């Protein structure tokens, strides 16, 4: 197992005592594609980021077990974590506009990421950057390598982000709402690209999103989170057999083309889901 999480809880101090954002989450991940689905504030991003120890400094983390490839993340120092972050596990965030450096060209940023981990010459790094842009299926990699982020569309920007994350040949990718800022057509392209790269390189993938049908389309397994807990874990093919009322509610409240409904059912939140 690449990642093992057992009974993870994350709390934030507040004037009225600690407020729990993640409560007793357990997950295991091998070389597969896991989707984590939930609303804003359900703890899905915190859970994934805890693997890289990328949490706000005031967060209080506790777990019976939290390991990345056998390394105890809770006890690991910053030096150990730097060996994991980027190099062995990449993180792709929602909006490329805020994740890319606006005053560096796309090629320079990818080359920098490559050199930081692979220690090659400038010339090698430049060649690697163009090769990586080609891998994320950018038609004219030389031109895009010389372009600044503001000259790229959202979809292109996200491809550049993915290329940068692939530079050190990581074993795992965490994609936190990678396509929420993109159009439906571009969204599908980016997810297919990630699916293909993950399969070809034998990587593990954690895909975080609030769109349940989308995630189940691209993942092997889906964990549904509500108020800091995993309320249901499903195989992607078994989505139609979901039993938890929250999962069912998430599926039903989306408007669809094939099953029109005059009124959308609204989620009735049951306090019992919190226990």
């Amino acid at each position, binding site marked *: 197992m690449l990642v093992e999480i057992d009974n993870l809880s994350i709390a934030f101090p507040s004037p009225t005592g600690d407020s729990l954002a993640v409560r007793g989450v357990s997950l295991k991940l091998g070389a597969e594609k896991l989707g984590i689905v939930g*609303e804003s504030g359900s703890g899905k991003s915190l859970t994934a980021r805890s693997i890289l120890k990328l949490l706000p400094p005031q967060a209080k983390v506790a777990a019976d077990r939290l390991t990345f490839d056998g390394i105890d993340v809770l006890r690991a120092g910053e030096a150990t974590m730097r060996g994991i972050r980027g190099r062995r596990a990449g993180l792709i965030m929602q909006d490329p506009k805020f994740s890319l450096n606006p005053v560096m060209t796309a090629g320079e940023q990818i080359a920098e990421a490559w050199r930081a981990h692979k220690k090659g010459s400038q010339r090698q790094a430049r060649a690697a950057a163009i090769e990586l842009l080609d891998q994320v299926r950018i038609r004219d990699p030389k031109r895009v390598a010389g372009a600044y982020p503001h000259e790229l*569309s959202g979809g292109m920007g996200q491809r550049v982000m993915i290329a940068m994350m692939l530079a050190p040949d990581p074993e795992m990718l965490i994609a936190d709402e990678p396509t929420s800022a993109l159009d*439906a*057509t571009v969204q599908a392209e980016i997810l297919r690209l990630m699916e293909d790269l993950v399969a070809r390189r034998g990587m593990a993938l954690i895909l975080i999103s609030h769109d*349940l049908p989308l995630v189940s389309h691209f993942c092997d397994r889906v964990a549904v989170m509500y108020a800091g807990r995993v309320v249901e874990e499903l195989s992607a093919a078994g989505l139609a057999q979901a039993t938890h009322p929250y999962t069912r509610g*998430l599926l039903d409240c989306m*408007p669809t*083309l094939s099953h029109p409904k005059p009124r*959308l059912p609204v*989620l009735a939140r049951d306090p019992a889901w919190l226990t």
Partner: protein
Amino acid sequence: MIDIGDLRVRFGEVEAVKGVSFHVARGAAFGMVGESGSGKSTVLRALSGLNPDWSGRVTIDGVAMTPRRGRDFYRRVQMVFQDPYGSLHPRQTVDRALSEPLLVHGIGDIDRRIRAALAEVALPAAARFRYPHQLSGGQRQRVAIARALMSEPEVLLLDEPTSALDVSVQAEVLNLLADLQARRDLTYVMVSHNLAVIAHLCPMIGVMQGGEMVEQIGVDDLRAGRTKHPHTAELRALSTELEEA
């Protein structure tokens, strides 16, 4: 209610909207879908008076519009934007945000109208003296909708009104928009890149690509797959592919 003929919008060298025409009856809802850069929001902004650099014919309730609009126009036509966090003043309370349109248009009875507006969009009365950051995303969008309704408009322009929201909250806001339309006989023009969301609210849909409206299609034809333009078929395929998963 709304009649648009050969609308063109230029940004410098680029023609962003290349001759778009459509018609929306009073109390109807018209949707526009398309990718980023297809010109759908630009059409909406020209219609709302936010972009004065257009040419063509824009008629609202039989009156031809000029690039500059009078105060009466802004009372009758209101707009709701994608991100309520960006469209609400962070240092103004909900009360202030809702009273502003009343002051601008010289409408009295402010206290009663604000209480009625909050009730209409199903916000608790306590939300009245909160700031935007104290509200959830869905509540903020309800405030933005309430503000748009303060001047009792006849036309509501909706620019991706649910794209920034969770799917569960999206369902609540879409239901609210449907209720308001039925209750007040509002005319909607809505823009989204999500075909299923547009199809839920709008019986007639215009598909935008590269600044042109390549197809206008009724929602029943769309659901049944009777599309004429390949881009409509492509958008429809993407949407249904995920539903069948």
